[in-house]
């Protein structure tokens, strides 16, 4: 017990407090140089910094795009798989494959799919769907870049959502569904009135975890666009990383990560409280 907890406290709890303390200082990287206490200066700077504000907007857009689609598609797949179906395990394993594959590998893969002039994405958009007559330079502007990053996020996350929903659906008593079908309920009605209420808890958990994950998007942005062009696809964590490890402004970086965490935790607490209230009602 003790060695484990001591390590845990050193690696997790102590730095958590440190982040907050650092964010109030103008941190000097050179050991021995005093780092003056500057109060809320770093925070004021952050919220007046258009790049940081835009990075929050990007993360919010990413979350708004990826979370609902992951939930809807994940739930749909879980419902399809929630039956005694030959080959069920194989489908489950396949759908979960993107989840276990490293972020680095899939980020590079999707960069390739979107980036190259005649990559798969342009092939689909131009030749198959005819949505555009010219190849799109996905990573050359803000929203097409965020879109590509979002597509990766959805593709990678669906399997996880599906698995949690599948577990929740499996726990719904079979008798309830049978009783509903004897009463003449169709498949959709059974889902709407029996399964859906039963998995509300899982739905809330998945929603909050995906929401937190959305705002913490990092590796895919770093590797696919690097936050560019000209900060257009910057998200809070890539911006924090740049400030800290490129410009060595540790105080400002800490203020960014602390603001982000506080914001996300506050929003998820609000959501949690809201879903609980709705469930009780």
């Amino acid at each position, binding site marked *: 017990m003790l060695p484990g907890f001591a390590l845990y406290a050193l690696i997790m709890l102590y730095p958590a407090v440190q982040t907050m303390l650092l964010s109030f200082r103008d941190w000097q990287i050179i050991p021995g140089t005093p780092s003056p206490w500057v109060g809320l200066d770093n925070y004021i700077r952050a919220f007046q910094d258009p790049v940081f504000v835009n990075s929050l907007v990007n993360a919010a857009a990413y979350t708004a795009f990826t979370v609902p689609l992951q939930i809807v598609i994940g739930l749909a797949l879980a419902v399809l798989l929630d039956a005694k179906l030959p080959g069920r395990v194989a489908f489950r394993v396949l759908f979960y494959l993107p989840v*276990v594959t490293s972020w680095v590998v899939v980020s*590079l893969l999707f*960069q390739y799919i979107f980036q190259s002039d005649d990559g798969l994405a342009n092939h689909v958009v131009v030749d198959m769907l005819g949505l555009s007559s010219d190849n799109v330079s996905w990573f050359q502007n803000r929203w097409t870049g965020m879109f590509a990053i979002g597509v990766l996020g959805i593709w990678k996350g669906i399997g996880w959502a599906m698995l949690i929903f599948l577990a929740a659906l499996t726990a719904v008593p079979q008798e309830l569904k049978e009783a509903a079908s004897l009463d003449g309920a169709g498949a959709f009605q059974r889902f709407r009135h029996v399964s859906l209420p039963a998995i509300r808890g899982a739905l809330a958990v998945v929603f909050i975890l995906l929401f937190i994950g959305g705002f913490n998007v990092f590796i895919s942005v770093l590797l696919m666009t690097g936050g560019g062009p000209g900060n257009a696809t910057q998200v809070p964590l890539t911006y924090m990383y740049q400030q800290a490890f490129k410009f060595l402004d540790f105080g400002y970086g800490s203020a960014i990560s602390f603001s982000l965490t506080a914001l996300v935790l506050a929003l998820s607490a609000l959501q949690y409280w809201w879903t609980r209230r709705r469930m009780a009602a």
Partner: protein
Amino acid sequence: MTDTRRRAVSLAARYLLLAAAAVVMVYPFLYMLSTSLKSRSMSLTDPTSLWPTDPTLDNYTTVLGSENFARYFLNSAAVAIVSTTLIVLLSAMMAYAFARLDWPGKRFFFTMIIVGLTIPTMMLIIPQFLLARDLHLLNSLPGLVPFYVGTALAFNTFLLAGFFEQIPFELDEAMAIDGAGPWRRFWSLAMPLSKPAIGTCVIFAFLGTWDEFAWALTVLNDVDNRTLPIAIALFQGQHSTSWGLVFAASIIAIVPVLIVYIVFQRNFVAGLTTGALKS
């Protein structure tokens, strides 16, 4: 009769939808695999065709032939294996203390673990970097281990404590009457009975440490010390035209994960859902 027919139609519809989804989910992997089997000129002239007309293993032999690649693979393997062992051992001991023993301050310490579950790791990267610097753990492979282990403890402890709690206390009492102390009961009762849970932790810990990118990128400088994800990402940055090589390296990097995942996937599913639904 109509009923069985309706059933058959609905089953066919299910399969059709599932198959369509499966194609979308797997297509990018096939695309990666086929690119890795194309010669360089092929991947430039005809990037969208899935079946290389002239498949070649050149990319793989080039990747495997470069001395550094083997080194990075071993670096990743060593760090992942040592970290995984420590994560499982330490979190099992902590989980046992929380789930099966009574001691003062237990509630407080458990709350601290829950707090750790809610902290995103990336938020801590700046102070952790300073800590690593002060402890002289920058730029060293063994230096990664304490950070990987410390970061993974909260989640795995939480997961295992949930499983340990389900073991009937009568078994403990029976063993205690025979004179077994908590340490014996931990090793010969709780651990063997929780094999599926331990398996889950092994997978989580292995996946997490094998693929870890942000921290390794931040603290490792020496070319020789790179882990596989870093090597692949930097490799892509330098040779963005030889995608075949990048993907050959990626596929080799995925293989261990794939083996671990497919072998243990039953445990994994059980563990993942218990963990997620409880938190």
